[in-house]
């Protein structure tokens, strides 16, 4: 056990990177996902096509490939990104595509009567969206949103491909140095702890959002 704990400092150094990518993705992809979900329901077919094309590409190719293209591919055509910026950008546009579909499902679950009632009450389109529709969508999407967040915790490990050191990489460094698989066990425990915290937070917010029931 003491042996296992000796890997902790190295692994914790990687934790900073993992959490950095995690939080920046959540903060960036939620608004972008909402925008994209609205774009899919736009009355203009060009906007619908563009957004659908974007979602098709983002969900249709592995995130690992997207990371490689954004960091190395764009650099070869003269658009060099910083490593962390490239990771943040790739994760945000990728997760926004998945979230857009979740939000679209949430939007469709709001009954037509709500829109009609808002219209009768004389609410503007913006008011209808922010005061009537969005609060209901948020309640509906929390469980599936949580699924993506838990996925994101683990997907952050893909940033190894652009040379960023997260906890999984810290684990591999320790594993090749000490020639033992034990560091991976520690890394697994840390991932479990992170998903446990995320799950608890999501459960609590779900409960709070359901007080009206």
């Amino acid at each position: 056990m003491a042996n296992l704990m000796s890997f902790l400092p190295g692994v914790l150094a990687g934790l900073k990177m993992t959490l950095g990518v995690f939080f920046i993705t959540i903060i960036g992809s939620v608004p972008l996902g909402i925008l994209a979900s609205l774009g899919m329901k736009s009355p203009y077919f060009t906007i619908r096509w563009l957004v659908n094309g974007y979602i098709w590409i983002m969900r249709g190719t592995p995130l690992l490939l997207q990371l490689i293209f954004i960091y190395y591919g764009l650099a070869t055509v003269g658009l060099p990104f910083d490593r962390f910026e490239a990771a943040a950008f790739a994760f945000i546009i990728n997760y926004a595509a998945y979230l857009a579909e979740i939000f679209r499902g949430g939007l469709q679950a709001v009954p037509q009567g709500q829109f009609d009632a808002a219209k009768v009450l004389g609410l503007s389109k913006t008011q209808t969206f922010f005061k009537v529709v969005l609060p209901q969508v948020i309640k509906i999407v929390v469980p599936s949103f949580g699924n993506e967040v838990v996925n994101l915790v683990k997907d952050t490990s893909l940033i190894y491909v652009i040379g960023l050191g997260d906890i999984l990489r810290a684990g591999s460094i320790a594993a090749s140095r000490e020639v033992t698989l034990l560091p991976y066990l520690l890394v697994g425990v840390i991932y479990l702890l992170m998903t446990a915290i995320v799950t608890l937070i999501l459960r609590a917010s779900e409960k709070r959002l359901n007080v009206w029931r």
Partner: protein
Amino acid sequence: MISKKRKIIVNSVVAFFFFVGVIWAAIIVAKPGQMSAREDQWSRIQKEKTITIGLDDTFVPMGFRDKQGKLVGFDIDLAEKVFANLGIKVKWQTIDWSMKETELNTGNIDALWNGYTKTPERAKQVAFSKSYHESNLTLVVNKTSGIHRFSDMTGKTLGIQTGSSAETDLNTHPEILKNYLAGQQAVGYDTFDKAFTDLNAKRLDGLLVDEDYARYYIEHQANPENYALLRGGFKPSEDVVGLRKGDKGLQQAINRELDRLQKNGFIRNLEARWFGPQPDLKKN
């Protein structure tokens, strides 16, 4: 309801900007890549007094992180010494090893210095320094396995590191080892610690690996005396520094320093420190 006219206008505007974007992207892609990567960067490096070197920080004992997270290893010591003599600070950049040539040629890093072995394929893309260390490919087997020479691997399973120069050597000279193997194919691993786990579990009969690494890994096993190292007909591999083709000034400076450090015994001392004493080797 939105009027038909408005729909047509908005749709045209969106389509217009989309096509402008596509054409702009096509122009950028069609343009030749970064010019700066093709020019000699030596004067810039000398002016900034820093050089960025790419490494895989899991690569024991060449360059890896100790328990405090500090970079240590044979190549770290050597590169730091070479550039200290030149009055240049080294900035180490962790990279994914499968992306090393791309990192170098896009200018993210200025050099690859991490047990980088000379191969004909790499020579097409990368310029090399003079070789500063030689190492042999060895076959690691369990002592009790009854394997004493490469031909004893007939019908057996071999492990290698994917993308390593060992893999290239195995494939370019199939008559030395590859033709004996079960299915004439080896099993690829991303890191050697996993391959050793399989060797211990008897899912592998042998492991083709650079001697320096083999010794490091064997030393760290629970029972180092359980393994045997076999040398075969592979030519020794030469470790070099990988540089951009255009960087002649940097190449000359590194070669000059490597020459000096070879003559004054610095490299020999480092080898003794990081690779330990030569173990008994069964000659094939």
